[in-house]
Each structure stands twice: as structure tokens, then as C-alpha cells.
């Protein structure tokens, strides 16, 4: 058979996507129990989402929420940390805890036949942790050592400093780890108090995706979490005034072969009505390989292994940020190109219909692959619970993104991207880049120390 290589095959119509049904119930203690039937392979994923995260750290006690999450599997009842993990290992279960600004998420992936003991262990960990003094001392020490080591990881230094620059004392102004100073001030009583008042069923959701009926999941949850009680405190209050950081900042890293860059500003919350238009706009700007910024900095200039931008959508307005690591000699030029690309999207280089359609297609045509595994499905459901999204959110996603027009993208770019307010942070070799920075017209760089965050 001859092959026509004069043109690419054109894919047919994308079949419509339907998210599987979510069955829901609520236990008397307020815990929401949601399940999704997923039968392709005998694996179940259990996620417990508590809508309290690093943003709930009291001022001066930054790092408390994450340290508390870390303490949960350090012992429960008569079991030590080691014994808990032996019990998990005996059923092949994998426990992960993940803490972000808005939430704490515990995940257990397990072979379906071990769902029962896995949920039971999860409840022991969450509801009945021992929170012992000696474990606290050890865990805090490990986290202090981690912070010490992160001083040498350029990306981590950049992330920590960038949040502080953008948000100051706002609840989003620190990363979940906290600082060496704040961790040093914590006590085990802080952890106990935080656990008692924040890790509560009233604002928590248990999500199970796997080959199991909702009735079974509900009965299992009712047994395991029956004696979990407590009301949830109110949501995090936004701070009225955000800082006005210097335009240009540098954390010196002498002799570094690359500069780690962050360029961005505080942007928009997850509940914005412009969510879909912003996601589409970001695809054009820096959200995929063929986006403008990656093609420019990597494929045309060869300055980097890769560049990307993102709107970090959160319950309160999150950051828009470009992140890239560029060879030292190209630092100033990469910053200029990046800022020009962000500014260009608002008018000088308006989005073309073709660019938008590539970005939209990349989001929509392969949408089904985001929901192949039990873990992907459970994680998707956490998004609904975390941000109070409508039940049909995933079913409507493709249509909503396909409805985004060039005009919409231009409008949201204008409304949510502010080139004159971009804050740039460099973690790199100051002596090697300082002369070039002058030409950027961003003012003299503020020089920061790596260990001040």
C-alpha cells in the first residue's frame, strides 16, 4: 500500500468524554464520603482531603501544618511509626501525604483486596495519631536538616523567596516547610492543638476510586471514622495589602552555571469565572512545549532545557509565574525575552486563531487520558471537593475550553497579566550577571540572602 507523506493524517472527531458518576454521602460527624467505580485493574486509591493547609499556619508558626501532617504516621495507639509502616507494607499499601497552601491530602493506594485494612490504618493515622514528644523532636530535626539542605537547591531557594517577595506576611507568603526560625519555635503542644482544631471531619472528604460499591465504601468509612469529631474553623482570611516588591531581585550563588529565574505576580483565584480562558491563554504563553516562551528560550535561543508559565489557581488569588533555569551568560537576555513575551500577549503580538486552536486542542482532544487510573480519578475528585466545583465540572470542561475565543484570551491577558508589576527573582552568579542587568531598566537589583526565608 502506498503511503501519502504529502500531508498529515487528520484525526477524526473526538468522542465525547463523560466523567464517571460520583456517589456521595455524609457521615453524622460531617465527613463527606465520595466514591467512584473504576474497575479496570484491581487497585483502589483512597484520598482524604482536609481543607486546611500551609495557609492555616499561625503567624510565627510557619511550617506547623506540614509538620503536623508529617507527624500523623509517626505512631498511633500502641503502634510506633515503624510498626505502622510495617502494617502498610504487609498489604502493599503506599501512603503519601501532600500538603499545599489550601489543603492536606493523604493518599493510600492499595490492591483492592486490601481496601479494608488500608482504610482502617488511614483512620488510625488521621484520627488517633500519638503525637509524642520524642517523635516530634525527631521529625522537627529532620525538617530543619531538610531546610538546611534546600539552601543549595536553586529551584527550592527561588520558590521560597519568590512567595515571600510576592505575598509578604499573607498566608501564601511561605512554603509549607516554614523557616528555620519558625520551626525552632514550635512545640509538640502546637502540633496537638493544630491537629485537634484543624484536622476535623466537618470540612473533610474521603474519596475512594476503585472496584467497590458505594454502600461498601460508606460502611467502611462509618466504621473507621466513627469516633472522629470536631468542628472546622473558619476559612483563611485574605490580607488586604500585598507588598510591592522590588522589580528585580537576586540571591547570589557564586559560580553557578545557570540562573534559576522566577518572574510573576499575584494573580487570580480558582473560582474566577475566567478560569477556562486563562488556562487556554497560558497554553499559548508558556503552558506546553510549543508555547511561545519555551519555543523562544529553548528551541530558538538554546538558553535552557525548558521554560514554562502557570497560573497557580488557589482558593485565594494565587501567583502567575514563569519558571526557567538559563545558562548564566544569557540571564539578562532571557529575562528581557520573557517579560517581552508576557507583555506581547496583551497586544504587540496578539494571539492568533491558529495558536489558540492548538492550545485548546491540546487541552481537550486528549482529555480522557487524564482519567485513566483510579489515582487520576480520585485526584480529579479532590479538585471538586477542594474548590467547591460543580458536579458536572469535568463533563463540561471540553465545551467550556472550546468556547474560548481569541477575544476572550486577549481580554483575560489584559486583565490578569501586568508586565509593569512583574517581579523578577534570580538565583545565580551575581558577579557574572550584574553588568547585563543594568540594561533591563528594572532598577538596581535587591540582593537577598538565601537563608532569610
Amino acid at each position, binding site marked *: 500500500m502506498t503511503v501519502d507523506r504529502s500531508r498529515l493524517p487528520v484525526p477524526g472527531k473526538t*468522542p465525547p468524554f463523560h466523567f464517571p458518576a460520583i456517589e456521595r454521602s455524609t457521615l453524622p460527624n460531617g465527613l463527606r464520603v465520595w466514591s467512584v467505580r473504576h474497575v479496570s485493574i484491581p487497585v483502589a486509591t483512597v484520598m482524604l482531603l482536609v481543607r486546611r493547609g500551609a495557609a492555616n499556619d499561625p503567624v510565627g508558626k510557619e511550617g506547623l501544618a506540614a509538620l503536623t501532617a508529617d507527624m500523623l504516621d509517626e505512631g498511633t495507639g500502641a503502634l510506633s511509626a515503624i510498626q505502622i509502616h510495617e502494617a502498610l507494607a504487609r498489604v502493599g499499601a503506599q501512603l503519601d501525604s501532600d500538603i499545599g497552601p489550601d489543603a492536606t491530602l493523604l493518599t493510600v493506594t492499595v490492591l483492592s483486596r486490601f481496601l479494608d485494612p488500608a482504610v482502617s490504618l488511614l483512620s488510625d493515622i488521621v484520627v488517633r495519631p500519638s503525637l509524642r514528644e520524642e517523635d516530634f523532636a525527631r521529625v522537627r530535626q529532620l525538617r530543619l*536538616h531538610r531546610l*538546611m*539542605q534546600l539552601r543549595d537547591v536553586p529551584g527550592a531557594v527561588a520558590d521560597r523567596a519568590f512567595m515571600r517577595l510576592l505575598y509578604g506576611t499573607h498566608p501564601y507568603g511561605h512554603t509549607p516547610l516554614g523557616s528555620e526560625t519558625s520551626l525552632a519555635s514550635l512545640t509538640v503542644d502546637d502540633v496537638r492543638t493544630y491537629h485537634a482544631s484543624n484536622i476535623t471531619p466537618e470540612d473533610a472528604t474521603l474519596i475512594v476510586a476503585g472496584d467497590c460499591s458505594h454502600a461498601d465504601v460508606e460502611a467502611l468509612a462509618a466504621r473507621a471514622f466513627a469516633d472522629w469529631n470536631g468542628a472546622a474553623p473558619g476559612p483563611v482570611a485574605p490580607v488586604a495589602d500585598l507588598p510591592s516588591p522590588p522589580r528585580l531581585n537576586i540571591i547570589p550563588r557564586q559560580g553557578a552555571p545557570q540562573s534559576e529565574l522566577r518572574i510573576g505576580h499575584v494573580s487570580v483565584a480558582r473560582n474566577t469565572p475566567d478560569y477556562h480562558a486563562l488556562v487556554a491563554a497560558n497554553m499559548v504563553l508558556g503552558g506546553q512545549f*510549543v508555547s511561545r516562551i519555551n519555543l523562544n528560550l529553548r528551541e530558538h535561543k538554546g538558553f535552557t532545557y525548558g521554560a514554562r508559565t502557570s497560573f497557580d489557581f488557589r482558593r485565594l488569588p494565587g501567583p502567575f509565574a514563569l519558571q526557567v533555569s538559563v545558562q548564566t551568560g544569557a540571564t539578562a537576555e532571557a529575562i528581557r525575552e520573557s517579560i517581552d513575551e508576557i507583555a506581547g500577549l496583551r497586544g504587540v503580538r496578539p494571539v492568533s486563531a491558529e495558536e489558540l486552536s492548538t492550545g485548546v*486542542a491540546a487541552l481537550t482532544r*486528549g482529555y480522557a487520558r487524564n482519567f485513566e487510573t483510579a489515582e487520576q480519578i480520585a485526584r480529579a475528585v479532590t479538585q471538586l471537593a477542594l474548590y467547591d466545583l460543580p458536579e458536572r465540572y469535568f463533563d463540561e470542561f471540553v465545551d467550556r475550553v472550546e468556547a474560548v475565543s481569541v477575544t476572550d484570551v486577549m481580554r483575560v491577558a489584559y486583565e490578569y497579566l501586568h508586565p509593569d508589576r512583574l517581579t523578577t527573582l534570580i538565583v545565580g552568579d551575581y558577579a557574572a550577571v550584574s553588568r547585563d542587568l543594568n540594561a533591563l531598566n528594572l532598577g538596581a537589583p535587591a540582593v537577598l540572602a538565601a537563608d532569610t526565608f
Partner: protein
Amino acid sequence: MNITYSKHTLANGLDVLIHEDRACPIVSVNIWYHVGSKNEVPGRTGFAHFFEHLMFEGSEHYDKGYFQPLQGAGALLNGSTNADRTNYWEVVPTNALELALWMESDRMGYLLPALTAAKFQNQRDVVLNERRQNYENRPYGLAGMAMLAALYPPDHPYHWPTIGQIADLHAAQVEEVREFFATYYHPANASLAIAGDVDTEEALALVRRYFEGLAPGPSVAPVRPPMPVLNGDTRLIIEDRVELPRLYLGWISPAMFGEDDAELDLAADILANGKTSRLYKRLVYDMRAATDVSAAQNSRELGGFVQIAATAAPGRTLAELERVIVEEVNRLASDGPTEDEIERGRVQAEAQFIYRLQTVGGFGGKSDQLNAYNVFLDDPGYFDRDLDRYHHVTAESLRAAVQRYVAHGNRVTLSVVPKGKTIYGMPGSVPSLVS
């Protein structure tokens, strides 16, 4: 659990593996070329990986970059190179299977006419930046290549890092690409796996349409270096931009799927994987002498090495960590694991094995695993037997493997210490020359 598949070898030598899984309307297209940095020679290292980059820069009949049409069709795609093989994959919606095959076949058959000096220069710059980002500018980033360079002699194909030596990357010539392509990138040195929402006959017909006309290349002679022998303890040190010193110990061990490979895999878990492991319990939990500890049987096609690494807590010494690690290795080699440890190891091996098979695509998913078994063992259906290897491990077989391969002093000992603090290194260490 078994994965049903069919295998077809085209006249030009291309192996085609097809697995139907209609659960999700997606298809994974995964191609392995049986070439990696092991096929390079000293002075010309980094080539296989550099070449992987060029494969995304366009081919004769679509010379505009590989990502654009595939991302526009909703694909997720990537590639990777290691010492043994280079893989490329796309996960596409069912309706874009033909597009993916068109693209993969075009770069398999027609890459060179589209290769220009400008692309070559650009991707060399990108690779040099990948090297800076992932190795040179990363704490402990040079440790891996220092271990390989010391474990394997200079003429052994695992001696050099897959990312390549900086000088070799600068010296690479565009003309060399032509020869490399002709030697390694052709149907007879490749394996194509398709997994997902397809009908086997329809998928095979499409594969035939796009790949059957491609010319077979020369057969590639297997690389068969002798198993290296370490004599005594090679002690090396690297001064790095780090806060805490870290110790790496390495021993030569059997190849992937070889005898004792599964034993050493489970032994590494028992020693240092997770909170239940012996070294975590002692070094991190009880003594608080280390901030972390890890171990792995790094098994590859031509051989393996067992590596144990631990980072010293402030004020603690690498010598103390080394003493405890050696004690625990020796205890495992003399007393063996407990039955509970063996049972946990088996359950975890089974669970990890099944978790990987939840997805048709990506790194480690079903299509990638079919290709791994086909390329390394000529048996794509090795799934059950692979898992059986772990079920057959006994306390005694594990003990004996540890005794034979790890519980001795013929090893590499690498200290990575803060700049200017060579005093923190193991006594008698000499500087590693990697950069």
C-alpha cells in the same frame, strides 16, 4: 496478572507488539531503539542522548518540529535515553493513532534530510543546559557519574554518563549524526508497542502501511563487555555546594533479570527502602545520625551495581554511617532476612508491579514494559515470570546473594562534602575527576 498481546515481526525486522485495552479511549504508541550510551565510545560520549533531542526537531515530510501536530491532536509525548536503550512515546486519543504512526515512521525513515546545522547547534545548547540543570547545578549532582566512572573501567560502556562529557558534546560533529542514524535507527533495531483502545488487526494494518516500506538497516552487534572486577576499596571525594556530607557505597552486581537480581532488589528494600528498613530504623530513627538513607540494585542490560547512600546529620561523620551500613549488610549476609521481611517484600513487589500496569502509556506503563521484555528478553509476555522471580526469593537465596555481592570490601566509596571540607570525607579519599 497477564497482559494479552500479539507479536508480529515485519519483513524489515521491526517488532510490533499490540495489546488491546478498551477501558479508556486512548492509545499508547511506544518505540524502543536498542541503542543507548553503551553503544558509544570514549571521546564520543553523550551522542545517543543528543540524538534523542534531534528526533523531535522534524523529519523530511514534516519539518516543523515534532510536538506541534501531536500536541494539537491531544497527545502527551516524551522520550528518554539511558545506557541501554532509547525510547519515544505518545499517548494519543484513539482517533489520532494514525497520526502518531505517520510521525514515528517519518522520523524512523526520513530524519536525515531534515537535519540542519542550525538544529544541531541549537539542540547541543539545549543539552548542555540540561546537563547544567540536572547535574552541574544540582547538589550531589555529579555523584552518579563519579560512581559509574569508578565502578566500571574506562573502556567499559557503563563508564561514562548518558548525558555525556562536556568536551565530547562540544566536539560532536553533525556528520557523525548520519552514521549514527544509519547504524542504530532502523526497523531491525527497533520495537514498536501499541497499547490501548485499538483493534489488533486494524492497528497492525496501519503499522504495515507506515513502517513496512522502511528499509532495514545493518544488524547491530551486541555489546558484551566482561563483568568488571573491583580490587579493594576505591575511595573518592567530591567537594560540592552542599551543606551536609553524603556517603555513597557501590558494589558490582548481576544484570537485569539475571540470577540474584530479584534477591538484591528485595535486599535493597530491606536495607534502606522506607521507614520499615533496617538502615532507616538504625541511622535515621534510632541514632539520628543520618537525615536519609537509600539503597538500590541498579540492574541494567550488561550488569548492575548495588548502591547504598546516606547523608550525615550535622555533627555526625561519614565514617559512623559507613560502620553501621557495613554492620547491617554483614548481618543480612550472615543471618538473612526475617520471614516477615520476605513476606512484606513479596507483597510490595507484587503491588508495585500492578500499580505500574494501571496505565497503557508513559514511562513504565504497559506499552513500555512490553518493549522492555521484548528488547531485553525477546519475550514480551514475561510479566508473570518477572513477578515469579520475586515470589521465588527465599530467605536463604537472599542471604546468599547479599553475601556474594555486597558483604565484601571490593567496592567504591564516594564522599560528597561541602566545599573546603575534605576533612569530612572518608579517610584516604582522592578527588574524583568528573565535572
